[in-house]
């Protein structure tokens, strides 16, 4: 269930809020300034919707880029080094939702370079693959320039999903004086890139189960059995 929620740091929730990769022993302990210097609650701008170029609608997803995380200490008493992330989206993409959904799902959990490489191999939904790789490239650039990501290849696709946007209506004529309405559908595509290596199992249900887990599941299934129509 956790894996299906669209929250930042979802995979951190699985490991426990802490450092993803081991820190090198440093001689000086990094000190965290008093909390009064963090932005006072209620003054943040990141829960206000942001207008996105290309359309008239405003969205809350890009506003996550304005969120400032104050420096804190982790459980070892050292400065918590959070992975950088960058939210990017494009609105009013002229494409089918049924096709774009496959591409969005395909790209989840891959490193950025792997995603861009794999998208060039798609002979089906090639137009959508081109659009999505374009958006991921833009997000990569944004991450390096504005969100303090050091290496642009050290990113992975943490979130990738689509939503339906506006529909523009047209009409078509049928035989015998009958008419019908046509929908020209537009989509929104959202992507969040995060710094670091992707988790080994992005989807919990696809994870390779350990022998103990398999045994537990088997035993539980066997014990669930009942004799039918028995009172």
């Amino acid at each position, binding site marked *: 269930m956790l894996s299906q929620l669209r929250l930042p740091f979802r995979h951190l929730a699985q490991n426990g809020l802490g*450092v*993803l*990769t*081991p*820190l*090198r022993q*440093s001689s*000086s302990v*990094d*000190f*965290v*300034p008093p909390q009064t*210097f*963090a*932005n006072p609650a209620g003054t943040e701008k990141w829960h206000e919707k942001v207008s996105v*170029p*290309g*359309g008239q609608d405003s969205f809350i997803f890009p506003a996550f880029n*304005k*969120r*400032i*995380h*104050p*420096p*804190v200490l982790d459980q070892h008493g050292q*400065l*918590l*080094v*959070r*992975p*950088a*992330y960058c939210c990017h989206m*494009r*609105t*009013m993409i*002229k494409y089918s939702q049924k096709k774009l959904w496959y591409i969005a799902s395909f790209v989840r959990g891959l490193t950025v370079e792997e995603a861009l490489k794999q998208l060039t191999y798609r002979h089906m939904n090639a137009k959508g693959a081109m659009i999505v790789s374009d958006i991921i490239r833009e997000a990569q650039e944004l991450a390096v320039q504005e*969100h*303090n990501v*050091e*290496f642009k290849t*050290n990113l992975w696709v943490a979130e990738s999903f689509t939503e339906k946007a506006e529909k*523009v*209506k*047209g*009409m*078509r*004529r*049928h035989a*015998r*004086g*009958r*008419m*019908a*309405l*046509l*929908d*020209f559908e*537009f989509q929104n595509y959202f992507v969040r890139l995060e710094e*670091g*290596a992707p988790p080994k199992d992005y989807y919990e249900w696809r994870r390779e189960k350990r022998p103990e887990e398999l045994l537990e599941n088997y035993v539980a299934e066997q014990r669930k059995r009942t004799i039918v129509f028995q009172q």
Partner: protein
Amino acid sequence: MISLQSSIKLKQIVSGVGSLSGTWHTQRALHVTPLILGWGNEHKPIPRGRFRPNRHWHPENRKARAMKILRPDLPDSDFLRKMQSKEASPAEIRDFYKERGLMRHESDNEIPVYTSCTGMLMEPFEPPEGDGKASLLSKQGAKDSALVVQRKGKTLLATRKLRRFEEDFDPRQFAEASQEIYIQAHEALARHDEDDLHKYATEKAYPEMLYNTENKTIYWKFIKSLEPPKTVQIRANDAFTKNNLFAQVTVRFHSQQILAVYDRFGRLIQGHPTVAKDVLEYVVFEKHAANLYGTWRVHGKIIPDWQDNRTPGRLTRVLRKDEAPMEEEIITDEEATKSNEAESSTTDESDAPIYDRFNRVIAKSK
């Protein structure tokens, strides 16, 4: 006579495609699968024969078929994006509006212009060489302080001009009072408090102070003053009209401060939160003396060249193609290959993991 089954089929067709009265409706709103497509095991699709023509559509009638569809002008979101992020050329924008027969109108927002500060430093003070390095009691220190006292003529003139508007002005007392303004301005900057920053810094200093501070947490602390603040220069001049006096006072601060800058994710990128640094700077305060409600505010800073002892920040970036590396950093190809060979020879046995600037492992040992 039509059999029952075929009449049902007719009804299905009728309900699927539309009534015979000739009114148009939304095909997709009906939520009924037409029998032509069929569903399940019982309702098979209509076979080609009596009720469905057994012909392929004629390729000659392609254009006629296309004319049946009224396709509206779809919004060109690519170009709109280009325009809104200001990457479209003026010619392209002009063509866009012309094609659609739209008028571009100038915005009606007229902003009145009000000069509340001068946009420059009047005769910026030149700090004497070696200031702050030698103590006042040494021979060098005494010479330096003497230099500062020498350039007093213009300062006295300016003080007189200023006293016409502000009778109680005393340079010595001002120096002590200005330290409070300096501290307030910097604390407001650390808090990203724009209202207070306007109060304690002029409109010229405001963007200079806020530059590059977005999405960062700044921790700044003023620990103590190593030497009492000293007024070193006063300049006062009229701007635009006569008697519209702006006064600038340069004050020398030698203090101990702490600065730690954290990026958007709370990672340290500059300075350190516990290491105090000695800071020598000449801060220029400005006041619109002719204005009854004018206040002294931070207008600019003069930092001597040799005083730039900041710790280098941890941020790195890739040079653009047109940018040349700094002279000290130019490494010739030979040197680069030599160093690479040297590194590879030592690290073949023990492949140390690669760390990024926040001491995180990005590539493990092989």
